[in-house]
């Protein structure tokens, strides 16, 4: 390889000036094909898009913490009910309305099963466990009006709420994405008609569609997913359409078409991978909406049928006695609020990671 030598140019007083000169070596003129000697210039190498996204995502503290919290809540939803000996529908009327009691913590004066009741004669401290002489019974979050363990029910409810939200969001994504992509790609009359249909559906309040559907169909998991599916795909289709309009005039699409690619190949194999970031972000925004709508439906009395429970139905049940036994309503509300918060922050973080221009604003 050529050696670089520094040669002194001017010697007059003042700053010393050097000039690089090359001294050629014999092996400069041989063919370089071997792997060992060729290197990629790492300074200017193109960065992997996903690596960049990941780096930007993890640099965002709020989003990262939210991700961890979502994972923890997910794990608790999966394994929480297994951590106790109670089942979510097992009733024990002799042990109803027990305040939370946790092993270990009970000696520190918190979570010891005490609760203060406001009666006409004043505030009264009662402890359900001691009254019944139960030394070995622990309800970590307390027990409800039917003597069911709230810990088990909260995580069972989280599991159902999350399940509904995930199913609904994924189905929404598939429908909305296809609808928007097709509408944007074909343009013209097709686009016009498809847009008008979407606009009309969007014009009907979500509340009305969901309520009416729930009245006509039998109650249950699938019905709620179906109701959410019908209303939530519009947002996704709008984003997919807008992205499609941006991309479809680009050269790579033209190249693909020149090479003889069919319409659906171009839509789903050429353009879709380029907008997957926006789609995932929108998916993440769909999840809290779905959780919220489900909770709302349960609160109104159109949710999951008993004895199954969701976060909304737990809140709705505990609402009736929330002034006397506030500990019954706090866990489901906290989990619900935390889930909504985390998914929103996660979605915000993803949006910024996929589209760094947004952050500068």
């Amino acid at each position, binding site marked *: 390889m050529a050696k670089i030598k520094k040669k002194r140019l001017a010697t007059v007083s003042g700053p010393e000036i050097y000039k690089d000169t090359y001294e050629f070596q014999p092996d400069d003129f041989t063919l370089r094909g071997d792997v060992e000697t060729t290197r990629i210039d790492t300074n200017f190498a193109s960065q992997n898009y996903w690596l960049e996204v990941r780096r930007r995502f993890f640099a965002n503290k709020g989003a990262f913490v939210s991700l961890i919290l979502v994972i923890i809540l997910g794990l608790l939803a999966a394994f929480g009910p297994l951590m106790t000996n109670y089942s979510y529908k097992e009733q024990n009327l002799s042990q109803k309305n027990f305040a939370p009691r946790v092993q270990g913590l009970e000696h520190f004066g918190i979570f010891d099963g005490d609760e203060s009741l406001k009666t006409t004669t004043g505030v009264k401290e009662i402890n359900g466990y001691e009254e019944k002489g139960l030394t070995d019974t622990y309800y970590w979050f307390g027990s409800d009006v039917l003597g069911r363990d709230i810990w088990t029910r909260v995580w069972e409810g989280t599991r159902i709420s999350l399940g509904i939200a995930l199913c609904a969001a994924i189905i929404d994504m598939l429908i909305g994405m296809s609808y928007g992509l097709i509408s944007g790609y074909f343009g013209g009359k097709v686009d016009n008609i498809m*847009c*008008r249909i979407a*606009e*009309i*559906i969007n*014009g*009907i*309040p*979500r*509340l*009305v569609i969901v*309520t*009416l559907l729930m*009245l*006509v169909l039998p109650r249950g998991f699938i019905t709620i997913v179906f109701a959410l599916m019908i209303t939530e795909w519009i947002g996704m289709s709008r984003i997919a359409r807008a992205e499609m309009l941006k991309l479809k005039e680009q050269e790579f699409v033209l190249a693909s078409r020149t090479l003889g690619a069919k319409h659906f190949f171009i839509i789903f194999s050429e353009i879709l991978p380029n907008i997957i970031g926006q789609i995932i972000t929108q998916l993440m925004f769909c999840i*809290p909406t779905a959780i*919220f709508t489900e*909770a*709302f439906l349960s*609160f*109104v*009395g*159109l949710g999951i049928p008993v004895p199954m429970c969701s976060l909304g139905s737990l*809140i709705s049940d505990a*609402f009736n006695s*929330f*002034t006397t036994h*506030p500990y019954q*309503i706090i866990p489901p*509300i906290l989990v*619900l*609020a935390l889930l*909504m*918060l985390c998914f*929103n*922050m996660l979605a915000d973080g993803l949006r910024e990671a996929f589209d760094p221009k947004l952050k500068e*604003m």
Partner: protein
Amino acid sequence: MKKYIFKRVLISIFTMLAITLVLFILLQLMPGSPFNDEKLTATQKAALNAKYGLDQPLIVQYAKYVFNMFKGDFGVSYNISKNTPISQLIQSRLPISIAIGGMAVALGAIVGLFLGIVAALKHNTFWDTFCTIISVLGVSVPSYVFALGLSYTFGFKLSWLPMLYTQNSPIASSVMPSIALSLFTLASVARFTRTEMMEVLGSDYMLLAESKGVYGGPLIVRHALRNSLIPIVTVLAPLIVDLMTGSLVVEKIFSIPGVGSLLVTAIQSNDYSVVIALSFIYSAMYIGIMLAVDILYGIIDPRIRLAKEGTN
């Protein structure tokens, strides 16, 4: 501009027709018929059907149904209060709901706008963080959680405000519901205002205005705020929808005798005719608001106002 408004109105009419069609079909699907009495003979039934127009083709029935709906004739309630015309049930409840909803929108829009402006002006300070936290919380936490929290602290523990709605003191009893309802609007408006203001504040014409000697209040209000208001108007429409959903739950929590709690009761007691009537009213209100916002947007935004070909 004319074309734009015409298009919007046309879409609204079609949406309304679609809704009435869905409601009509649902009404046909509902179990039971008003003439289930076994003593009725076939001729009597036919006479009854003829009297109520049930022997006519479906399309005529549908037309009649739409006509009645728009006239405000929704039929009678079956379960909630037997044989009371639904329009009567709604008449006394609608003003209460609209009052609380209106208060919530006003509160949310004004406070949200203020928070957003402050956050944008004091970018990257304590106020900015405070505003961001409020808006993230407000968007993520459902309104009934706030409602429960408020009702527990101020209603139950401190007894400052009535926990449940009382007819005697409508103002004091609507404070907490309005605040609980407004938080979502407040948070969203604050968030959008902040983003829009930041964008406008960084633009060239602000620099021009400043260099021409405009400063302080007039600079913020006339030059920055006016331009950032345009997109904010569009987010208000979906917010009003969320308000409708929220009102159902909040009205139940504070037992407000409004339309929302009527709908909840109707759902729980399977009073289909009330549910359908209220669905119609909700949809009509929603579509009306959307249309108003769209037209307002067209008037404010010069890009639409001056366009020859109205775009979407």
